[in-house]
């Protein structure tokens, strides 16, 4: 497939916007698109080492597994699914999830990218409706290394009046895997979305995250962290739109890049005319652990309303040498001191994760990505 076609598929419809939006990732996309892709096999076998990585005890009977974009009944177990949760498969590649009440434990949606003999691709759609109460959800992408697999997941999410949706998106990709996720969320009156993204690995990860604060007093708390090494590449574009009165967003993302990794964070917040009383906060801090790593951050705030509280800040820096010396002067070795500082930096973005067991999983996954093995 030609790069232009991939661009059209994965990005804004407007040609100029599309150009701009792919500015930093076009070379990576072009390199990827030079290969011919065949359709990925939805019957690919899931081996035990891979299964161990997602078979979390806390979600054992609350797990839906998708193999290369297609729901796999044999790998899933939904026997403990609450009656307020409905999972329908409208088509082989399209799933509709409806949550109409409180969930004590999150539903675990696992998207596996399993390589074939040749480069392969899958695409799927997931629509989520949180209509009442406190809904929660984990979206988990992982897979095996091998030939390239390019996955694409298109999501439309609505959170109805007064409902809260809590999502954790964990993308723990093989270095041969690429993933495009586009999620568009609409929040109605008094609706809340609490989302956390943890983005690890991948040849190319692209996340387009659109949130419309369409109802009065709706609220978004977005947390995210990427921790990259090797030649991993993660590009996140957030587009938050305040469209109603007294809406709030609090966006806090952290990025860490080591070796030759590449990170991009574009955070756009727009406060529309008439969306008075909006409160928009965006913080994006990034850490470069090597001279060859690169991170680009672009906060963009556009305000067309009155009485708006808005703040944004973005930085790219290196480890604080004073802090490093302070730890070492107390006897902590260089490697451990670095690890402690990077882990602390990244952990700030995990403050909205409610379950201690989930936090522990995320900490465990992050730990080796934050410099522990680096000399």
């Amino acid at each position: 497939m030609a790069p232009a076609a991939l661009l059209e598929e994965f990005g804004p419809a407007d040609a100029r916007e599309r150009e701009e939006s792919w500015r930093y990732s076009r070379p990576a996309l072009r390199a990827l698109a030079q290969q011919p892709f065949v359709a990925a096999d939805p019957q690919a076998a899931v081996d035990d080492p891979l299964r161990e990585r997602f078979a979390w005890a806390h979600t054992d009977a609350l797990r839906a597994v998708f193999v290369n974009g297609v729901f796999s009944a044999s790998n899933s177990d939904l026997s403990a699914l609450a009656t307020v949760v409905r999972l329908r498969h409208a088509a082989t590649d399209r799933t509709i999830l409806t949550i109409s009440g409180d969930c004590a434990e999150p539903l675990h949606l696992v998207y596996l990218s399993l390589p074939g003999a040749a480069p392969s691709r899958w695409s799927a759609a997931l629509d989520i409706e949180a209509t009442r109460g406190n809904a929660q959800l984990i979206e988990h992408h992982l897979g095996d290394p091998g030939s390239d697999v390019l996955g694409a997941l298109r999501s439309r999410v609505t959170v109805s009046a007064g409902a809260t949706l809590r999502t954790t998106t964990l993308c723990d990709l093989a270095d041969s895997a690429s993933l495009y996720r586009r999620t568009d969320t609409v929040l109605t009156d008094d609706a809340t979305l609490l989302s956390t993204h943890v983005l690890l690995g991948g040849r190319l990860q692209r996340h387009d995250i659109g949130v419309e604060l369409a109802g009065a007093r709706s609220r978004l708390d977005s947390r995210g962290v990427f921790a990259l090494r090797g030649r991993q590449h993660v590009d996140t574009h957030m587009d938050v739109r305040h469209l109603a009165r007294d809406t709030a967003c609090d966006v806090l993302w952290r990025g860490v890049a080591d070796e030759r990794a590449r990170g991009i964070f574009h955070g756009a917040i727009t406060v529309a005319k008439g969306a008075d009383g909006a409160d928009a906060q965006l913080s994006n801090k990034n850490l470069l652990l090597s001279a060859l790593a690169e991170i680009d951050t672009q906060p963009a705030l556009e305000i067309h309303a009155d009485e708006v509280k808005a703040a944004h800040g973005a930085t790219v820096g290196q480890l604080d040498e004073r802090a490093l010396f302070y730890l070492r002067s107390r006897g902590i070795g260089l490697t451990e001191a670095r690890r402690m500082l990077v882990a602390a930096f990244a952990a700030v973005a995990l403050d909205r994760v409610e379950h201690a067991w989930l936090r522990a999983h995320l900490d465990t996954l992050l730990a080796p990505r934050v410099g522990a093995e680096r000399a």
Partner: protein
Amino acid sequence: MLKIENLHVRIAGKEILKGLSLTVNAGEVHAIMGPNGAGKSTLGNVLAGREGYEVTAGSVEYAGSNLLELEPEQRAAAGIFLAFQYPVEIPGVNNTYFLRAALNAQRKVRGEAELDSMQFLKRVREKLAVLQLKDELLHRAVNEGFSGGEKKRNEIFQMALLEPKLAILDETDSGLDIDALKMVADGVNAMRDAARAFVVITHYQRLLDYIVPDFVHVLADGRIVESGDAGLAHKLEEHGYAWVAERKLAHGSLAGAA
């Protein structure tokens, strides 16, 4: 224990220490006084192993080996402790976790058994009481949101916990009110013994009313220009640092290091 000979140190090409010599034996408390810019903090940082300090001449021998060859963490394990003039805030790193990691890292290097959390907490509680620090500080991030006085007391608390052989206090008294000053002094005095030495760097004589030194040295322009007993600190307080310089001029030499 510590033998510094003719030490020359540069920072960013500028010579700060210009032939400093100092010998500290176990059991002794040495006060280093001097005007701003004399090189007092440089001395502390060089001994602790901070990067960016270029030693161009001289030697530092500690416990019979070349201190300058050791990494900062190796120096800490060997018993050197620097109480920072400006303790660093480290968001996200829990104070208790940090202290236990530090203590156990040192013990491991020394071939001692690591402390489990019960043993560690017992030790922490004992030391907290001396410094009158609140338990709550342990649950916060390292130095984050601490007041100036709390940060300085936290340094002395860490010293008490890590039990170094040679403690260097870099202007620990600056910014402290009289009550905090006494707590810091109590913390130091409680640790004074025949096996341990202190180098107390200070701008003012006030701290030395509470931590009475065995020796007082005046550091000016990168060298020790005058040494004496505790009485020297009082003379300095009375006459100011200019007095030392004038006396040296009167003797026809500014070059005579101690």
